[in-house]
């Protein structure tokens, strides 16, 4: 209780100011109401629903009355060999996507930075940003059409002398690389924006001084420009790994995968959807979801801590 005393004092003090200034402050509290209702009903009520991970949920009995079963669902989860597989898949896919994307985005930003004709640069940018705004239904449709065994890609490969059509999305060797590559293609333009912003803040005098001292173009990129974007790269990587479980990309996987590639392509989110919602194993899927949410919370808190420790970037 000793520890809580200052907190309680602070709350009391706030409460007294609240009462005193309410005649002027009340609009602020009224404005908050709609969003708070939304928050309670659609964020915190579902959090209360997490209790079904410890129950055997029966739709007729609801959150409140379904029978408790302790940690049975978690035991089922850990005994299920496919759980470890989807867990591994999630991490492999997410990590490959993050690393590939940010590496290529830095390179692309540097290449764009070397283009001196502004019109040319702008035109390229307009084109590479576009796929970011298309849904994975549209992109998935395009990929299924173009990468199928009779699709245009295999037609061209055939003309180039490849005899067997490549089933990009239908076998375990090519599925994950295809996911990573198409994600890269969709996001790389967009991901350059932060790096391009960082590049504009590099002092031009530094570059001039280096040129006078005889640094060639490549040397200037290596010793001045690259170190200039490095802090941004670390920040982005840190945030991305904080959101690792989102980075696996539910939208993309769900629209591109099929039973033939479950062993490499099935991720936590698709499994929760398929087994939990379609298979109506509500409690088990909630348990898996809880593990995902808790690990995700730990990751993002650690990454935000790291960021606020090493930079002056503050999210809220």
């Amino acid at each position: 209780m000793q520890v809580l005393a200052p907190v309680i004092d602070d709350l009391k003090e706030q409460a007294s100011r609240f009462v005193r200034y309410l005649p002027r402050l009340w609009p602020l509290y009224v404005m908050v109401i709609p969003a708070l209702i939304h928050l309670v009903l659609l964020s915190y009520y579902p959090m209360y629903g997490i209790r079904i991970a410890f129950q055997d949920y029966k739709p007729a009995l609801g959150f409140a009355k379904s029978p408790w079963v302790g940690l049975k669902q978690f035991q089922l989860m850990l005994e299920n060999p496919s759980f470890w597989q989807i867990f591994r898949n999630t991490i492999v896919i997410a990590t490959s996507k993050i690393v590939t994307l940010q590496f290529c985005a830095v390179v692309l930003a540097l290449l764009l930075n070397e283009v001196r004709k502004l019109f040319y640069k702008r035109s390229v940018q307009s084109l590479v940003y576009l796929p970011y705004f298309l849904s994975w239904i549209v992109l998935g449709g395009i990929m299924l059409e173009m990468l199928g065994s009779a699709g245009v890609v295999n037609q061209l490969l055939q003309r180039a002398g490849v005899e067997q059509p490549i089933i990009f999305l239908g076998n375990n060797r090519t599925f994950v690389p295809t996911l990573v590559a198409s994600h890269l293609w969709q996001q790389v333009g967009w991901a350059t924006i932060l790096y391009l912003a960082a590049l504009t803040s590099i002092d031009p005098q530094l570059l001039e001084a280096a040129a006078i001292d005889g640094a060639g173009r490549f040397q200037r990129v290596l010793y001045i420009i690259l170190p200039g974007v490095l802090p941004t790269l670390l920040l982005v990587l840190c945030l991305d790994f904080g959101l690792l479980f989102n980075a696996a990309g539910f939208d993309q996987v769900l629209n591109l995968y099929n039973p033939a590639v479950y062993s490499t392509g099935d991720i936590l989110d698709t499994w929760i959807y398929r087994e939990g919602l379609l298979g109506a194993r509500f409690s088990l899927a909630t348990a898996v979801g809880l593990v995902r949410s808790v690990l995700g919370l730990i990751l993002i808190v650690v990454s935000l801590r790291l960021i606020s420790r090493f930079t002056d970037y503050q999210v809220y």
Partner: protein
Amino acid sequence: MNRAERRGFGSRVFDIFNHTFLLVLGLSCIIPLIHLLALSFSDRAAATGGLVTLWPVRPTPITYEKVLEAGVFLNAFWISVIRTAVGTTLQMILIVLISFPLSKSKEEMPFRNIIMGSVVFAYLFNGGLIPWFLVIRKLGMLNTIWALIIPQALPLWNVILMMNFFRRVPKELEEASIIDGATYWQILLHVYLPISVPALATLTLFGAVGHWNAWFDGMILIADRDLIPLQTFLRTVVVKMDMNEFMRNPEDFDMFSDRSLRAAQTLVTVVPILVVYPFLQRYFVSGITLGALKG
């Protein structure tokens, strides 16, 4: 860099490679859409025979006629228009209403930090898909248009962005109006909103694109055919390859390929995005850097 600098041979070779590479990369982003366009206008033999690359073979507009004749496609398009218009409006109202008070300090607004904490926690942690679905079912939203609008009405990240934007509004502006006796409603309406137009435009555009592209909610929350939004309908067509909606006249498929029909529907779905794309471009740099500044 300075113009007077003499450029070596290696540097010029690099420039040629760089320009060519960027051109190829840029084109790779638009070529799939051009291929789809060519495919959608080509006749059956060309499409099934794999003869189409970037130019229609024996062009015919028949796939588009079929798509526009199909009531279910137009209906889904209309549902998406409604959810985008109503949903984005509601989003913006909620975002503005909560981020303005949250942009105040704890000293000005008692309990502000508790409310902020509950927003941030809900952003970082959630109940997961199953409890979320069960709650929406319990609230009676399943199979109503509200299932496409209400759950998406409070994007918490955008609340944080908008709050950070409001925080950077100079305090002097507000203090002047308080001295003049303005209420917080008036301050929000006459001081904050007018100078936040770029931020509001950014969040509106991104909110609208998000609504237009949303498909998962339509898939799990809507069963009624008449309420399916466009992206969800498109999923049954292009991902599930379900052509039942167009099978009432099977003889149609003598004239065009199902691949052309899928391509046509995909392109019609993309058109609204292409229409707002120039506006998006104007704003998205500010959109991505909006929250990046220190709060």
